């Protein structure tokens, strides 16, 4: 273990991001904290619209400002404060020190360029490599992600590859500069289940091989269980619970986490009705007062709509924000 292994690679403190539009202000992130250590995978879990992608885009420095405005908070990566560096410095970090993979490789790969071109251009931009050596490096990475050592894939256009191959090519593209951090934004959502497993295994393997930290964004707790070391649950722009993976799955504290876990299809509960959480994520322009989850929460009392529950520590880095922890609980049979 290196000395840097326990100092956080990425730290987000009190990040508050608002989108200022003509119709009003959308409060996308309401002060989130998150930290990630090298060699570990931190999963950010939530329904769509909860602020997961805004978080990753903020780390990448790819939020369009305006309409987005970073109201307060900080993002520290390695030694630098990502919110105060210039665009040019941020660009040098993107692709080089932070790689990113996306949900639908079919859409996120450029249809007009070959896979080879799309990988080598990154190497050429960041390392000033010559075409020939960049191609050799690209081949090496294609082999690493399981696309073989043949020249063929280099010359293929994205549409000539299957969904799984496209995602592998995308991964090769994201890690070809040996980034310290990989952001994976729902990388398996668009793939079918058998491919999901393969891709997750590949990401894990590459993480260990290159000692990367991974910020894994997903709405799928089944996928999160397989890949993550630590889980943060985000709801309406706020992290409601955060703990080691095993604690989140075995002893969730927040009713939202509890309900999410109950909504996972499970072979043991075969034949029973799948439990869904009624209602939907509030839109960021109209976040409910008090605890933003109270309109959907079966435990909610009048207090929940008036006060925001503080985030408290419950030992071993387990954090949660609810008034009723240890007092009331949701019956799994209901």
């Amino acid at each position, binding site marked *: 273990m290196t000395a840097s292994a326990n100092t956080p690679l990425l730290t987000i403190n009190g990040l508050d991001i608002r989108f200022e539009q003509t119709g009003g202000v959308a409060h996308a992130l309401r002060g989130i904290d998150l930290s990630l250590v090298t060699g570990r995978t931190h999963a950010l879990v939530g329904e769509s619209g909860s602020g997961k992608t805004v978080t990753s885009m903020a780390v990448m420095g790819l939020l369009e400002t305006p309409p987005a405005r970073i109201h307060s908070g900080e993002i520290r990566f390695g030694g630098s404060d990502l919110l105060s560096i210039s665009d040019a410095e941020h660009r040098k970090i993107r692709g080089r020190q932070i790689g990113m993979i*996306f949900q639908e490789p079919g859409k*996120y790969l450029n*249809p007009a360029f070959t896979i080879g071109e799309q990988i080598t251009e990154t190497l050429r931009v960041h390392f000033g490599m010559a075409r020939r050596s960049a191609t050799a490096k690209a081949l090496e990475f294609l082999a690493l992600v399981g696309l073989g050592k043949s020249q063929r894939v280099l010359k293929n256009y994205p549409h000539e590859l299957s969904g799984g191959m496209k995602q592998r090519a995308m991964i090769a593209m994201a890690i070809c500069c040996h980034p310290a951090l990989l952001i994976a934004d729902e990388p398996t959502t668009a793939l079918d289940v058998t491919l999901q497993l393969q891709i997750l295994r590949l990401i894990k393997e590459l993480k260990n091989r290159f000692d990367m930290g991974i910020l894994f964004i997903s709405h799928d707790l089944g996928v999160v269980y397989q890949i993550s070391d630590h889980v943060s649950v985000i709801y309406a722009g706020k992290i409601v619970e955060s703990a080691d993976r095993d604690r989140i799955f075995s002893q969730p504290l927040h009713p939202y986490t509890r309900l999410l876990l109950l909504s996972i299809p499970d072979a043991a509960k075969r034949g029973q009705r799948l439990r869904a959480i009624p209602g939907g994520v509030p839109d960021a322009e109209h976040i409910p007062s008090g605890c933003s989850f109270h309109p959907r929460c079966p435990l909610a009392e009048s207090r929940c709509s008036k006060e925001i529950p503080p985030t408290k520590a419950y030992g071993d880095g387990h954090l949660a924000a609810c008034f009723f922890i240890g007092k009331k609980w949701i019956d799994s049979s209901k």
Partner: protein
Amino acid sequence: MGRLFLTVLLISSIVFLVVRVIPGDPASVIAGIDADPSAITAIRAKLGTDKPISTQYLQWLWSVMRVDFGNSLISGQPVTALILERLPLTLTLAVLGIIISILIAIPLGVLSAVKRWSWWDYLGMIFSQIGMAVPSFWLGIILLLLLSVKLNWFPLFGSGTVRHLVLPALSLGIARAAVLLRLTRASMVEELSKEYVVTARSKGLPERMVNYKHALKNALLPVTTIAGIQLGYMLGGAIIIEQVFSLPGLGRLFLFGIYQRDFPLIQGGVVFVAFIFSFINFSVDILYSLLNPKIRVS
């Protein structure tokens, strides 16, 4: 290729019909107003217009296939030779026009899209509004007045040198550039909103590569198609512009053909232009498939 053949067949049939429906008899035009009826009958027999319409039609199709449109009723020269003699000028004019329109439209359209709501974008918008509103012949006259009559930069009449073609090509190109510019901007704006642009940025590519490499290559696909089709329209536009600048191109040839009810010339001319038009579209399809990797395989 089959489509190309079908188009030419269809066009030649329509042309044949239309020419026969137009009021006015070529024989009486040739013979003059006060001609004696027997002279007119003799001319008809010579032209073959006295034969049944079905026979005339079959003869016509046969001649189209041999690219022999007969002789001009007025000058007596073969129509094909007349057309080929005038073609280079019109073609040069059309090609120059499309080059000018591409040179204006693509850079300005791309800049307008990349720097949306900027000074460039407003310039592009003003240009395309004016360009679309102003007819090319009017623009031609204004350019003549300004640059030839007042400033004496370009010759007023005549042909033969490139200098004679600058103003007509400009008037053609500017009108077409307006349309092409709007298209380029729209296409580029659309591409810039695609997901792969986020990927390109996430790889740390400089904005210039994101815009002018990743988005531009995709944005140019529809633009190429339209630019090619515009080349065909440019031939039609050239016919009007030749009048303004008194250039001896195809336009003037056909126009006089129409005035004089020169059936073989009109028929041959329309079929010829239709053929060029179809051929250009056909070539554009091929070019498109070369540029678009998705089509290349299939």
